[in-house]
C-alpha cells in the first residue's frame, strides 16, 4: 500500500516537475542592464562608495601582513589560477604573506567556518570568492569589526560586508561577449543550451540573467533550449552535455559552459559525439583544460578573463587598502603590473575587458 503511494507520488512529482521546467533558465531575479548591440563601450556608472569599512584597523602601512584567501572551493582549475595570481602578487609586493585555504566542495557552511577560524587566527586581511552573497556577509562583517581588511573577487558578498570587490568584468559585458562570440559561430537563428554549476551560485545566475536580457534585445531569434546543473563536477558536466546533445539533436547549435569545469566537459562531449564544428562551445575555462580542443579546432574561442590577473589584482588592492593608498571615493587604483584599474558601481574594481583565448595565444598560458 505504502509502496503504491510512494510510486504514485513519484509519478506526480515527475508530472509536476515537467510542468515547471520549461520556464526558468537559471538566471536570478535582479534587474538586468543589457548593453548596446554594437561595439559601443559601456558607460561607467558613478555611484557613491557603498562598501563596508574595517573598524580601527592597525596601522600596517608598509609593514608585512598576513593574508588568507578563501575561494568558493579548492581543487578546480579556476581557483588554482586565482591562487597562483595571489601568490605572484604577494611575491612581487614582498611584504605580503598569502595563503589559500578553503572547503573541498562549494558549500557555504564550510566556507563560513574557515573564514571564522582565520579571523581568530589573527590575519590582517581576507580575500574571498563567495558561495552565497548573503550567507557570507555576517562573518565578513565580523572580520571588519575586528579591524581585518576584507576584499572580494570573482563572487561578491553584500556591499557593506567588504571594502572592495574585484569584478573580473561587468556582468552585462560578459553576457555581451559570450553571446556575440556564440552567434559568430552559430548564426542568429540557433538553439542554445547552458550548462551551469548550480542555480544558486550568484555570479552564474547573474550572467545568465544578463545573457537572457541581452539576447532578447540584440539576438531575438536565438532560442534558449535548456539550462542544466552540473555542480562543479567534470563527469557530471560531461554527462549532462552529452544528454543535451542527444536530446536535441540538430536543433542545438551551441552550448554555453558557465563554469571552468563545464566548458571542457562540454567540449569533450561534443568531440566524442563527433559533432566538432557542428555544435559550438563557448564559455569560461582555464587554458590548459581547453588546449586539446582548441588545437583540434573544435573550440574556436574561449571567452574569459584571466583568473591569474584577477587574483593578482585582488592582493594588490588589499595591500593598497592596508597602506591607505586606496580610500573610499577613489575612482581608480594602481594594481602593480596591471596598471590603473577603474572603480565602478561605488566599490567595485573592474579588472578590464573579457580576455579571449584563441588558438593563437592559448599556448602562452600555463594554468
Amino acid at each position, binding site marked *: 500500500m*505504502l*509502496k503504491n503511494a*510512494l*510510486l504514485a*507520488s*513519484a509519478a506526480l*512529482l*515527475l508530472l*509536476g*516537475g*515537467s510542468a*515547471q*521546467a*520549461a520556464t*526558468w533558465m537559471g538566471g536570478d531575479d535582479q534587474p538586468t542592464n543589457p548593453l548596446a548591440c554594437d561595439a559601443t563601450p559601456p558607460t561607467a556608472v558613478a555611484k557613491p562608495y557603498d562598501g563596508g569599512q574595517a573598524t580601527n584597523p592597525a596601522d600596517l602601512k608598509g609593514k608585512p601582513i598576513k593574508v588568507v584567501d578563501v575561494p568558493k572551493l*579548492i*581543487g*578546480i*582549475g579556476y*581557483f*588554482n589560477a586565482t591562487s597562483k595570481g595571489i601568490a605572484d602578487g604577494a611575491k612581487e609586493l614582498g611584504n605580503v604573506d598569502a595563503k589559500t585555504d578553503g572547503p*573541498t*566542495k562549494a558549500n557555504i557552511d564550510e566556507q563560513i567556518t574557515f573564514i571564522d577560524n582565520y579571523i581568530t587566527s589573527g590575519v590582517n586581511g581576507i580575500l574571498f570568492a563567495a558561495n552565497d552573497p548573503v550567507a557570507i556577509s555576517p562573518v565578513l562583517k565580523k572580520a571588519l569589526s575586528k579591524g581585518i581588511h576584507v576584499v572580494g573577487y570573482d563572487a561578491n558578498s553584500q556591499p557593506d560586508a567588504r571594502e572592495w570587490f574585484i569584478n573580473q568584468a561587468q556582468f552585462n559585458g560578459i553576457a555581451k561577449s559570450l553571446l556575440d562570440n556564440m552567434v559568430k559561430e552559430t548564426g542568429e537563428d540557433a538553439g542554445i543550451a547552458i550548462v551551469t554549476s548550480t542555480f544558486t551560485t550568484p555570479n552564474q545566475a547573474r550572467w545568465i540573467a544578463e545573457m537572457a536580457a541581452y539576447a532578447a534585445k540584440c539576438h531575438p531569434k536565438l532560442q534558449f533550449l*535548456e539550462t*542544466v*546543473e552540473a*555542480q*562543479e*563536477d*567534470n*563527469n*557530471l558536466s*560531461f*554527462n*549532462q552535455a*552529452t*544528454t*543535451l546533445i*542527444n*536530446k*536535441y*539533436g540538430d536543433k542545438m547549435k551551441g552550448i554555453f559552459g558557465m563554469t571552468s*569545469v563545464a566548458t*571542457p*566537459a562540454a567540449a*569533450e562531449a561534443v568531440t*566524442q*559525439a563527433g559533432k566538432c564544428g557542428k555544435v559550438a562551445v563557448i564559455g569560461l575555462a582555464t587554458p*590548459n*583544460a581547453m*588546449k*586539446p580542443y582548441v588545437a583540434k579546432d573544435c573550440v574556436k574561442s574561449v571567452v574569459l578573463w584571466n583568473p591569474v590577473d584577477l587574483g593578482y589584482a585582488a592582493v594588490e588592492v588589499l595591500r593598497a587598502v592596508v597602506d591607505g593608498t586606496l580610500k573610499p571615493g577613489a575612482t581608480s587604483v594602481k594594481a602593480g603590473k596591471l596598471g590603473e584599474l577603474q572603480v565602478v558601481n561605488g566599490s567595485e574594481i573592474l579588472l578590464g575587458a573579457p580576455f579571449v583565448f584563441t588558438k593563437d595565444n592559448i599556448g602562452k598560458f600555463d594554468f
Partner: protein
Amino acid sequence: MAAKQSSGRFWSGLISAYGQELVVLGCIVVMFVVVGTYNPRFLNNTNLVTIFSGNAYIAVAAIGMSLVIITGNIDVSVGSLIGVLATVAGTLVVNGAPVWVSWIVPVFVGMAINTVLGLLVAYLRIPAIVASLGMLSILKGGLITATGGKWITGMPEGFFLAQQRWFDVPAPIWFMVILTVLAAYWMRVFPTGRTFYAVGGNAEAARAAGIDPRRTCVLAFTLHGLFAGIAAVLFCTQLQVIQSTVPPGLELTVITASVIGGVSILGGTGTVIGSTLASILFGCLGSAMVFLNVSAYWLRAVLGLLILATVLADMARRSRYQSAATA
C-alpha cells in the same frame, strides 16, 4: 498433480531468488517505454550507448561494494578511493610511465588500500562504517595535500581506455558486462565465492563450518579494491581532465546501486547482477529526467522515492517468502 506443483514452485522459486533483480529490470523497461514514447530520441543508439558507457564505472564499483555488503560490512570511502586512484593513474602517465602501467598500478593500489581497511575491520574489530569513515577522511585530505588541488591534464592519446570501442561497443560496457557475469558466476559456483554468503548470513555458523570469517572479510575488501581500481581507470580515462575531487555523493550512489540491486544490507543475500542493473537504472534516470523535461529540482526527490519504493517492495517480498517458507 505433483509435476504441476513443482513447476509452480520452480517459478516462484526463481522469482523469490531473483525477485529484486526482476523488479529493477522491470523498472528499466518501464522507463524506456515511457521516455521513449515521450521523446523517441531517448532510445537513440548513441544516447543509450553514451549513458551506459558513461555510468559503467559505477556498476563496476558496485560489484565490489556488493561483495563487501554481502559479507555483512559496508564501505563509505569508495568515492574518495576512486578519486585517489584516478589521480595515481593520471600522475603516472603524465610523468612518462607507459600507458598500460598507468592502468594496472591503480588497481593494485586500490587492492592494497582496501586490504588495510579489511584488516582494520576483521582483525582489529573496528566496525566497517567507522573504519571506512576514517579512511574516507584520510583519503580525501591526503589527495588534496598530494595534488595541491591541481587538475591533471595533457594525458597522451593512448591513455583513454574508456573511449575505445571494440566491435563497435564502447570498452566500459564490455568491462561492465564481463565483470558482472564473472563475479556472479564465481560467487554462485566457486566455494570461496559462496563463503561470502555464508559469512554474511551467519558468521558463527560459518565459523563452525570451518570457514574463517576474518579471512573472508579481508578477501571481500581486497576484491572490492580491485573493482574500485578498475572503476577508477574507467572513470578517469573518459575525459581530458582529472580533478582531485569525484562526483559528490559517489559512495552513496554506489551503495544505493548495490542495495537496490537486491544486496541486503543485512548480509547474506543478493547478487551482483542486481547491482549492475540498478546502476544502469540510475544512469538512465538522470538522462531520462532531462528528456522528460522534468525540472532538475525534482530529480533527487524522485530518486529518493524510487529507492524507498524498491526497498519496501523487497521487504514485502522477503516477508512473504519467509512466511510462505515457514508455512
